[in-house]
C-alpha cells in the first residue's frame, strides 16, 4: 500500500508540475469577462477530418479579422478547440469541457448529424448557443431541434429537392440504384430523394446500405450496382468515404457507364476523387468560384482565405466563417452575450455576408439560403490544386427548396 501511495503521489506530483508547466491557469466560474470564448468542436480525425480542418482555418480567419477590429462589442474573442473524431461521444465530452472548463459561451462546429445532435443536446442543457456548421441531415433542425441550435447549412431535404428538380426532366423515368451510408444522414437523404423522384416516375431498383462508419471496401455493393445496370447511381456517402467509394466505382467501370449522383460534395472530396468526379452531379450550398464572382462579400472572404492559406475555401469553411460573423452580428444587435437575447435576434434578422440575403426560420432555426446543383469537370480543367472542381448547373433559391413548415416534427423549447 505504501508503495502505491508514494508512487501515486510521485506521479501525481509530476503530473501537476507538467500541467503547470503547460501553463494551464485555474479556471474561473462564469464571471463578467473581458473576452468571449468560442468552442470549436470539429473532426480532426476520422473520415471527415479534411472538412473539419478546413473549417478550423476559416474560424481562425474570421476571428482574427474580428479581433483586429476590436472584437465583438469590444470584447476579444478567444477560442478553445477540440477534435470530435466524428464521434458523438467525444463531441459531447468536448462540448462539456469547453463550456465548463474553458468558459465557452458559444459552440460551433460539427461533422456529422450524429455529433451535431449530441452537441445540440448538451448546449441546450447548458444554455449555450450552438451554431452547427457541417451537418446535413434533416434531424438537426427537425426531430432533434433545440432552441439554442442554429443550422445555416442546407439540409438533406433541400439538396434532394434541388437535385431532383434539375435532373428529373432528364432522368425522371429512369432506373435508380442507391448505395447509402447506414446512419441517420444516409437514410434522411435516401428518403428525401426517393420522395421527390419516385412520384415523377423514377424506379428505385435497390437501396444497399453500407455499415457506417468503417466501411473501406465498397466493392460488394458496387458489384451489385454494376450488375443492375441502372441509369442513375446515387452514392450517399460523405468525406473520405465518398472518395474511396467513387474511386472504387471507377475500378468497376461505373463512372463511365452510369450517371452518378452524390447528394453533397465539397472541394476536398472532389480533389480526392480526382478525375473520377468528372460528370458526377451533386449539390453544395457554396462554391467559391461561383459566389466570389457574384457577391462582393464572398469575394472578400475567398481572397482573404486564399491570401492567408494559399488556396480557396471549401464550402464547409464558408459556413464556418459566416457563422462567426452571424454570431457577432447577433450579439452586437442584441447588445448582450445573453443567450436568450441573441437567440431572439437570430430568429428575426435577415443578414448577408458571403451569399445572397438569408435568414433563419423561427420555427426550426434552419437557415434559408440557396442550394447549388453542380457537375464535376475533368481534372485537366480544374486549375491549380484542383479546387475548381465543377460547373454550376442550376441555383435554387432557399425558399423554393426548404422543407415546408407543415411537415416539421420540430417541437422547440421556449427557452
Amino acid at each position, binding site marked *: 500500500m505504501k508503495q502505491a501511495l508514494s508512487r501515486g503521489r510521485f506521479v501525481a506530483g509530476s503530473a501537476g508540475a507538467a500541467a503547470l508547466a503547460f501553463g494551464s491557469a485555474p479556471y474561473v466560474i462564469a464571471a463578467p469577462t473581458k473576452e468571449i470564448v468560442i468552442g470549436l468542436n470539429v473532426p480532426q480525425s476520422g473520415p471527415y*477530418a479534411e472538412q473539419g480542418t478546413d473549417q478550423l482555418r476559416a474560424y481562425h480567419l474570421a476571428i482574427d479579422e474580428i479581433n483586429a477590429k476590436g472584437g465583438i462589442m469590444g470584447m476579444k474573442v478567444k477560442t478553445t478547440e477540440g477534435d470530435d473524431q466524428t464521434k458523438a461521444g467525444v463531441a459531447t465530452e468536448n462540448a462539456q469541457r469547453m463550456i465548463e472548463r474553458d468558459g465557452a459561451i458559444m459552440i460551433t462546429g460539427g461533422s456529422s448529424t450524429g455529433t451535431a445532435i449530441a452537441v445540440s443536446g448538451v448546449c441546450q442543457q447548458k444554455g449555450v448557443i450552438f451554431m452547427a456548421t457541417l451537418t446535413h441531415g434533416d434531424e438537426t433542425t427537425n426531430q432533434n431541434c433545440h432552441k439554442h441550435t442554429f443550422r445555416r447549412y442546407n439540409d438533406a431535404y433541400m439538396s434532394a429537392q434541388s437535385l431532383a428538380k434539375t435532373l428529373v426532366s432528364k432522368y425522371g423515368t429512369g432506373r435508380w440504384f442507391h448505395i447509402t451510408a447506414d446512419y441517420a444522414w444516409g437514410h434522411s437523404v435516401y428518403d428525401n430523394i426517393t420522395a421527390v423522384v419516385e412520384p415523377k416516375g423514377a424506379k428505385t431498383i435497390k437501396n444497399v446500405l453500407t455499415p457506417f462508419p468503417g466501411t473501406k*471496401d465498397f*466493392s460488394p455493393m458496387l*458489384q451489385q450496382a*454494376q450488375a443492375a445496370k441502372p441509369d442513375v447511381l446515387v452514392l450517399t456517402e460523405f468525406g*473520405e468515404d465518398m472518395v474511396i467509394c467513387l474511386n472504387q466505382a471507377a475500378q468497376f*467501370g461505373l463512372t463511365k457507364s452510369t450517371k452518378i449522383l452524390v447528394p453533397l460534395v465539397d472541394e476536398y472530396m472532389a480533389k480526392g476523387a480526382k478525375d473520377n468526379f468528372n460528370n458526377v452531379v451533386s449539390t453544395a450550398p457554396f462554391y467559391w468560384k461561383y459566389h466570389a464572382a457574384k457577391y462582393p462579400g464572398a469575394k472578400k472572404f475567398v481572397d482573404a482565405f486564399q491570401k492567408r492559406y494559399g488556396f480557396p475555401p471549401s464550402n464547409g469553411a464558408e459556413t464556418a466563417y459566416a457563422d462567426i460573423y452571424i454570431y457577432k452580428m447577433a450579439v452586437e444587435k442584441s447588445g448582450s452575450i445573453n443567450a436568450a437575447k441573441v437567440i431572439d435576434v437570430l430568429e428575426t434578422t435577415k443578414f448577408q455576408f458571403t451569399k445572397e440575403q438569408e435568414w433563419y426560420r423561427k420555427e426550426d432555426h434552419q437557415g434559408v439560403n440557396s442550394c447549388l446543383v453542380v457537375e464535376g469537370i475533368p481534372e485537366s480543367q480544374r486549375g491549380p490544386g484542383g479546387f475548381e472542381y465543377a460547373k454550376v448547373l442550376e441555383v435554387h433559391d432557399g425558399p423554393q427548396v426548404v422543407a415546408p413548415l407543415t411537415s416539421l416534427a420540430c417541437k422547440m423549447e421556449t427557452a
Partner: protein
Amino acid sequence: MEAFFEALLGGLVLGLIYVAIAVGLTIIFGTLRLVNFAHGAFYAIGAYVGLVIAQHIGVGWAFVAAPIAVALFAVLLDRLVLRSFYDKEPTAQLLVTFGIALVVEETLRLIFGATTQQYQMPGSLQGSVTLGPITYPAYRLLFAAGVIVMLALVWLFIERTNYGLIVRAGVRDRIMVQLLGGNIRQASTIVFALGAAIAGLVGAAATPIYSIDPGTGFAFLVPSFVVVVVGGLGSFWGAVLGGLLIGELQSLTNLAYAPASNVVIYLCMALVLLLRPQGLLGESEVIRQ
C-alpha cells in the same frame, strides 16, 4: 449469383491479407514465444512507407521499400525493447506490445495526419478483368496472386532452409534446439524481421484497395489474432486455413446480412476456443521437458 462469386473473390482478397499477417504472427510465436500485439504496427508502417514512396517515386519501389523499412524497424524494436520480454509471461508480452502498438499508431497519426489516404495504381492496372459472369478489378486479382506467391516463398523458407528448420523445431522444443547447437538467437531475429516484413509488404500492397489511416493496422490485427487462434498458434497451414476461412466468412456474411459481418468472426473464434482450443491445425499438446 454473380454477387456470390464476387463475394467469394472479395473474401479471398481479404482472407489473404489476414493470412499474411497471421503467418507472421504465428511464426514469430513459434520461434520467439512472443505474443506480438504490435504486429498491426508493421502493417501500418509498411502501408505508410509504401504510400509515401508510391506518391513520390513510384509504385514499384513502394513494394521494395516497405518490407525493408518494416524489417529494420522490427529488428530495432527487438534489440531495444522486446528482447527482455521473451522469457516473460505471455500476459506481460501482450501488455508491452500493446503499448508499442499504441505508440506507433499515435506517432503515425502525428506524422501523417488522421485522414484516410490512398494511392492509385498505375493506369494499366486500374481496369477490370472479366471472369465469366463477373467483372472484377484487375489489381485485386494481382494482389491475391502476389500474396499467394509470397506465402509460397515463406513456406519454402520454413520447410527447406536451415533457419526454417529452427522455426519448426522451435515450435516444438525451443531449448532442445539450443542445446543441439542451433543458433536460435540469429534465426529468431531473422524470423521476426521476416514476419514483420510480410506484414509490411501486404500493408503497402493493400493500400490501393483498403486505404490507410493510423488505425488500420490495429483494425486488421484483431481479426488476424482470431485467425491465428482459429488456425492454431504456431501452425503455418493453420494461419492459411484460418485466414481464408475468416475472410470468406466475413465476406459472405456481408452479402447475406451485412450487420453481422463483424460479429460472425468473433463467434467463430469463440466456438473454436470452446470446442478445439488448440485450433483447427494446432497441436493438442507439446512435449514438455
